[in-house]
């Protein structure tokens, strides 16, 4: 399947990746060849039942809904790597 530069641009925006024009060209080409590789799966006849009836090998593992103490050194190490802190919270640029 062919992917063009515009589609790459849209995917990149969705993935929150700013790409240069050179990157968009390069990735469009590479994407197309990767998708051809992936699309060999179309050789297999997989029924929609097989897709819908997929069971997970795991049961959900739950723990009690209680807050767990975070050690102060762990908290400090984590928070102090943010560019701006205010009241023990990470301050970011405005959302809108």
């Amino acid at each position, binding site marked *: 399947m062919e992917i063009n530069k515009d589609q*790459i641009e849209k*995917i*990149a*925006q*969705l*993935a*929150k*990746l*700013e*790409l240069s024009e050179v*990157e968009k060209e*390069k*990735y469009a080409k*590479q*994407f197309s*060849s*990767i998708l051809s*590789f*992936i*699309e*060999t*799966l179309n*050789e*297999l006849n*997989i029924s929609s039942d*097989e*897709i819908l009836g*997929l069971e997970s*090998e*795991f049961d959900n*593992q739950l*723990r009690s809904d209680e807050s767990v103490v975070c050690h102060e*050194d*762990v*908290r400090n*190490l*984590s928070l102090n*790597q*943010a*560019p*701006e802190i205010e009241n023990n919270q*990470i301050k*970011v*640029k*405005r*959302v*809108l």
Partner: protein
Amino acid sequence: MEYHKISIKDLSDLLQKRELSSLDLCNYFLDRIKRIDPKIKTCISVFEDEARKQAVLADERILAGDKSLLLGIPYLAKDNILCQGFKTTAASKMLENYIAPYDATVIKRLKESGAVLLGKANMDEFAHGSSTETSSFFISKNPWDVERVPGGSSGGSVAAVSAGLCVFALGSDTGGSIRQPASFCGVSGLKPSYSSVSRYGLMAMTSSTDVIGPIAKSAKDLSLIMNVIAGFDENDLSSFKQSIDYCQNIDNSLKGIKIGIVPEFIDSLEDSLAKIVKESISVFESLGAQIKNISLKYNKYAGPAYYIITPSEVSSNFARLDGIRYGFSFDYKAKGSNSENLNEIYLKNRGEAFGPEVKRRIMLGTYALSSGYYDAYYKKAIAVKNLIKKEFDGVFEEVDAILIPTSPDVAFKIGEQIDDPVKMYLEDIFTIGPSLAGLPGLSIPAGFSKDLPFGIQIISKKFRDDIVLNLANQFQSKTEFHQKFPNLN
């Protein structure tokens, strides 16, 4: 004495008998790293002071009568495993300043056992690759031929063990990232059964197949490490609850063991490599194993399925990497100050900090999971994953283990494949299937071609890592490939 050529058990004996101190052993390896690593560049960080501190502690414990087998044994950890207070970078610009706030469970367990952490090993950026060429910092070299890659993504860990810069190393394997470099560098590398080793503190890539595993010079060494790092962890609720003794069956006779081989896989190899695999099969026959031809007809779909599943999970796991929380833009007042809003900061940070392979995978995953494509790609890939798993289940009703090549060729030259993503993905053609099925897979050295190592891969049923270790150990009792070392002088 060449301590880097000695097994964990024998080193432990020397330390326990006080013929050698842990501090001396630690300094021996730190010295080797200083002298040899500039040629092969396996280490991102070396923790000289911390390592010596841990070695001194190990000596005190030995004096007090502690007989733990890994006490005082130096190792390296792949740089996607968190070590509290130290840089953990995943070989990415995104995390080049990131200090881990806590220890991964495997690191905690190894600390408790008294093993000595020397530093962090280089890797493909965020474990995305099969050559260690995508590291944002530098390319690691294969100790057998420094113009060739060590394989990836645990290339640094594997090359360090191969070059004798540590006694063992930790890597991670999602689609082949321990096994393939182990084949390229002539060492023993185990991808344990999925969920047998806690992933707490391992930077998540493909959560449904990621496993931390050991790399060492022999199967016996691997089993000792597994007994320390494996086991249920309440911080990783996907971890397997039953405890396993990985050393228990390692010396069992192979009489009556049934090993499956796949003739088409062997025929697909170049002659000298096919010869190595066939000779390995003969070794197992001489040990009493019965060989049976089997078929893995879904194997050719493992790669395509994996390269949908991995990017999909990656695109989700990497959403947390916004460039704000993990140290990338600690100086963003200078870097991003002309960005008006949060969205622009995300776009800029992520665009700047991620390398090409990481971006490709994030975008592939975003595409595969997006509306209109989810059923066609992701759900289909999961259905294929299930078919592959069922095929292995069927095979294991007839045989106890499977023997196949680890990689399609010996180590390739640096730069040879970096511009061709699909060619790089095909490196994993023999390792992805077992990953998708969650099975244990072990690569051990089985011969040389053009003076380069080539490994064979032993696979067994889920949670029967003891079988793969047993087969590997018996093979190593009859062959000497695992005792060959590259000449780095």
